[in-house]
């Protein structure tokens, strides 16, 4: 009996080692496609690695990093002071790694004649009951505001970058995904929405903000006002497989995936 127990125990401890080094990545749904693709590619070359990716949102990712429930917390926003304090209380020093850039592009229906807005005008459209495109030099058409649902990182980023944390008007149409926003804007002449740069397509028209069109170059040079870095957070300096994975994402192969997923890679 004792022997069997010992064997079971040994097996129990050995099994994870056989399966490789486990890395748990959790957080931002914006970063999810990048993390997933990168993990797949990474595990092809690193046979020992066992990387599991979960969504849940930026806040969830950072919270579980603080709790020690994951190794890498993905976030589409910088960590908040309150979160740093909580981490410090648990004796964890959070380290940020920027892995990609994201630009939130404002989009309208292709038939809309408005080619650009200022950040102030965008804010006005999203937070007050500004009703007609006429006010902004467009056609005589009711404005239909489309927003991401209040829980996502994209919503938070837009709120911080454009709305100065003011609330989105209550009659805004809420969509759960970038794709949903694009499809509504594409078939609604009066609509305006915002999506990640990677989701731009011919069915909608991107507009300039403060005179700057959203594009790779303008986002990377920091000229386009509605852009943000995407983070992978670790508790302390990354080590072992975690370090290897983050280096892979920031390296040439990872950055190629970043581009493929429609985000802006860090260099060139």
């Amino acid at each position: 009996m004792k022997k069997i127990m010992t064997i079971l125990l040994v097996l129990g401890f050995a099994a994870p080692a056989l399966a490789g080094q486990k890395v748990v990545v959790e957080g931002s749904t914006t970063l999810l496609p990048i993390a997933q693709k990168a993990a797949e590619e990474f595990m092809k070359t690193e046979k020992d690695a066992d990387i599991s990716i979960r969504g849940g949102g930026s806040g969830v990712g950072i919270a579980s990093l603080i709790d020690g429930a994951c190794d890498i917390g993905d976030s589409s926003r910088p960590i908040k002071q309150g979160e740093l304090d909580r981490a410090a209380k648990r004796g964890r020093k959070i380290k940020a790694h920027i892995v990609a850039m994201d630009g939130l592009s404002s989009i309208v229906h292709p038939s809309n004649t408005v080619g650009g807005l200022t950040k102030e005008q965008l804010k006005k459209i999203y937070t007050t009951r500004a009703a007609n495109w006429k006010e902004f030099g467009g056609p005589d058409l009711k404005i239909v505001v489309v927003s991401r649902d209040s829980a996502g990182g994209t919503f938070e980023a837009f709120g911080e970058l454009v709305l100065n944390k003011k609330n989105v008007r209550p009659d805004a149409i809420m969509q759960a995904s970038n794709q949903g926003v694009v499809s509504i804007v594409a078939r609604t002449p009066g609509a305006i929405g915002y999506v990640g740069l990677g989701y731009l397509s011919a069915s909608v028209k991107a507009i300039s903000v403060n005179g700057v069109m959203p594009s790779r170059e303008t986002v990377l040079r920091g000229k386009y006002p509605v852009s943000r870095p995407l983070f992978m957070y670790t508790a302390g300096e990354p080590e072992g497989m975690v370090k290897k994975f983050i280096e892979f994402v920031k390296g040439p192969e990872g950055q190629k995936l970043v581009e493929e997923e429609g985000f802006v890679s860090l260099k060139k």
Partner: protein
Amino acid sequence: MIKRNKEKGIEWLFTALAFSSLVFLTGIVIVLVKEALPIFSTVSLPAFLGGESWYPTAEPPEFGIFPLIMASFWVSAGAMLICVPLGVGSALYLHELAGERQRAVLKPVIEVLASVPSIIYGFFGMVILAPFLQDRFNLPIGLCVLSTSIVLGVMATPTVASIAEDALGYVPRSFREASFALGANRWETLTRVIIPAAGSGISTAVILGMSRAIGETMTVLMVAGGAAVVPSSIFDPVRPMTAAIAAEMGEAPVGSDHYHALFAVALALFIVTFAFNIIAELISRRYRLKLGLSR
């Protein structure tokens, strides 16, 4: 002896199975109440039910679910306007006019309609119905109370039709025969005898259809638009309670005010549908007594 024990065992097993639903129901109620209560230390009950702003993730957050309640109310009421005539009408036709061969086709078809997954209804509403209404009525956007009501109404129709048809079937033959014997024609028999006799059964059908509509989630998430405003017309986008829970629960941190507020929304929804079901049960009980049926 062994056989006896086996029999006892099986009896116990089935008793346990029968009571398991009760266990689940109690469990659900306990969890709902326990998870919902903490929110009321942040907002008062009247402010929660009557507040007109739902900004659960803002700083400071606002938890007023009045727009969500009104949204659920309007889309369900709209759905009733569609599924009651359609459902009761189909039931009457099936029961009174359809021949055996028509019945053999129609009844299964209606039941298949009930088994179409709700996401397919939602997809249909989003991709076909909403753009159609948008063009037809020249709306700013087709995702609104009207489109949601239509889809929900069609979804609830088979529930209403099937239960109402059963109710008509329970009216004893003798009632009809007596009516004919007194010289009433078919129309008079239908409107003065059959429908009143089956009336409470039909009301049960309507109420169950209503709780189906108010509890539907996937469809309203896709078709209602999601704007948390009290609708001022049937062309306004809305955010029914179920849609709010479904859209937000995944991202609300466990234990936060937002999380508890969503449980409180769920509790409110549960109370409404529970009340509907109790009313339906009471009515159908009265109806059985009235007809002297001891089913």
